[in-house]
């Protein structure tokens, strides 16, 4: 997993860097792919979401759905779209957005395409919290407290604890990408051991519902799930986008970043905590929808042909992936599987390809 880009062979043309946009003292280089991808991704996302809200026992056409969404709908259609189907799709969009951005943050920071909330143990921590809330309810004093919190809050706490542990244990005079990944693997196995143990203590119906939860599902999500997530993203995503310039420096390695004037410790802390926060809220709303955070930034970086995963485009593609996968599980598959299984089936072969292929070329 080479960190630095290979030296360009003499004779090959330099990468076209696009236009430079200057507004007063601020300048940014503008490359059309980096602008086009979010626009196309957003358009596709709106379309797929509308299709998804239209499908069901009472089919509604895409134009009608769009009309309802902008406030021109009437009667039963308005109720079905806005109250029954929209929450599910909105949660899907927000979860995908959060996971895509968090994945891009982690991968840029660790300079490793395999760093994702799944391999770092964050989603496992969230799962352990949620399973504890499902399984231990009323059993003991702690169980009663956890059960009273509700599953989303317990998951949020689990992810936060895992994130803080990851941060504290991997911190040693700064954060190192490899150490972060390896500590994450250890946390991942501890989290799994806890989940396995909790499942043996559960009644079988609790164990089954816990299992559905830890697969990642959008079933029976309401506005109550969507609103906290939306508020969290409204804070965290702009912060992440603001950190974009720091990320651009971090991708070159610690020494270079320091040389470029980045205050390393503060920047690393901010990036990791932002990513942990995004993952925690996303997982608490829908469970760990696996592989999204891993796959999407890698697809986005290939589509933009940039030097690192673009944040906004990764977020939009993540939303697109989750909503599309949910649409497929609801309409195409004979049995309504949780959405997390489909994202795993799409993502896992890609992950293996990345492993076999990744080290021959310098990815990222």
């Amino acid at each position: 997993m080479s960190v630095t880009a290979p030296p360009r062979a003499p004779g090959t043309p330099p990468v076209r860097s696009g236009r430079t946009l200057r507004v007063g003292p601020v300048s940014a280089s503008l490359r059309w792919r980096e602008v086009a991808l979010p626009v196309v991704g957003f358009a596709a996302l709106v379309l797929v979401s509308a299709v998804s809200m239209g499908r069901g026992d009472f089919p509604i056409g895409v134009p009608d759905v769009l009309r309802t969404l902008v406030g021109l709908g009437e009667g039963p259609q308005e109720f079905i779209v806005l109250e029954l189907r929209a929450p599910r799709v909105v949660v899907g969009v927000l979860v995908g957005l959060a996971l895509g951005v968090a994945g891009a943050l982690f991968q840029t920071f660790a300079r490793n395409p395999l760093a994702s909330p799944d391999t770092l143990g964050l989603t496992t921590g969230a799962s352990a919290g949620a399973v504890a809330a499902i399984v231990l309810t009323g059993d003991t004093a702690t169980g009663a407290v956890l059960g009273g919190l509700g599953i989303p809050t317990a998951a949020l706490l689990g992810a936060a604890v895992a994130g803080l542990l990851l941060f504290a244990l991997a911190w040693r005079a700064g954060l190192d990408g490899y150490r972060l990944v390896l500590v994450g693997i250890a946390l991942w196995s501890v989290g799994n051991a806890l989940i396995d143990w909790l499942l043996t203590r559960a009644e079988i119906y609790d164990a089954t519902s816990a299992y559905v939860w830890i697969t990642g599902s959008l079933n029976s999500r309401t506005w109550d799930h969507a609103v906290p997530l939306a508020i969290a993203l409204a804070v965290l995503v702009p912060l992440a986008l603001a950190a974009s310039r720091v990320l651009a420096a971090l991708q070159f390695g610690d020494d270079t970043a320091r040389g470029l004037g980045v205050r390393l410790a503060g920047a690393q802390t901010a990036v990791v905590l932002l990513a942990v926060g995004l993952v925690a809220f996303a997982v608490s709303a829908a469970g760990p929808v696996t592989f999204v955070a891993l796959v999407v930034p890698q697809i986005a970086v290939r589509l933009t042909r940039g030097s690192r995963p673009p944040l906004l485009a990764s977020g939009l593609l993540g939303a697109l992936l989750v909503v599309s996968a949910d649409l497929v599980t609801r309409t195409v598959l004979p049995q309504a599987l949780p959405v997390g299984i489909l994202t795993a089936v799409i993502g896992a072969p890609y992950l293996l390809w990345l492993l076999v292929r990744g080290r021959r070329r310098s990815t990222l």
Partner: protein
Amino acid sequence: MATTVDVPTRDAARPPARSMRARRLATLALLLVLVVGAALASIAVGTRSIGLGDVWQALLDGDLASEEAVIVRQLRVPRTALGLLVGLALGIAGALMQGHTRNPLGDPGLLGVTAGASLAVVLAISVLGLTSPSDNVWFAFAGALAGTVLVYAIGSAGRGGATPLTLALAGAALSALLYALVRAILVSDEQTLESFRFWVVGSLAGRGADVAWQVGPFIALGLVLALANAPALNLLGLGEDVARGLGQRIWLARVVGLAAITLLCGAATAACGPIAFLGLVVPHMVRALTGPDHRWLLPCSGLLGAALLLAADVIGRVVARPGELQVGIVLALVGAPFFIALVRRVRTAGL
């Protein structure tokens, strides 16, 4: 990092050969005492505590029909024997894995063995309807083999071969994939989940003597192969070129090592379910006492593995009375901090 593990370093502080030998013999004796102590504790401690005197009587007098004697002979002794076998296997397998990959983070639980076994067992339960541990043994075995081979193939594909980081990542990634498949099956199959959830924690409970007899031969064969592999492993530690120059057939040593690892890990996982971190922790502790010579390291790792597994099992029985904490859970909770300490200690530049 890899080179600091296996290559013997000669520095001024190194004791002369004779005192090293005395130290190794002392280590061996100490480990034997530990194993015997752990085994006795494992027989005596439980939901019903039995005094060591009664244990002794029950073991000596086969006709004694008191309640204690029956518990000792039919429950505690098979369980302890299985624990000894599995601990022995995992300790040696860990030392072999770390030696062959020159990877201080080598552990069957992290390198795809247990994930492969898990998927195979889920398939066996859900498709074929086999629920008892003794039926699942063979599937766990096949799955463990497939998992090991896949992780090594993926981890060493491409330029540069297998490094500690790529192997650990390949193991984590493949495990994530295999567990995703396991989940896909279990989400819609409540009956399979019911059996699987008690297998996957890694436990010595509820395994009869028949399981020990089933996996015993494989572990014995694995032990023989592992010990035969030790001198070759010492040479391989000097680097493949040097080993080849000294007349070692590299491929033979590798094949024997892989066979031994698969036999030992597969049999252990088949018998008890996935047990992580034991194979990781044990060789590091032993290496500090015996030095890097695999002729001593392998047997001592086996003994310490057996002692630790039995101790973890006893702890699990004591802390969660009247139920018990499964040995796999205890070891994960104890072993993960050790792993993290190791990751923090080694210079990451070497990864």
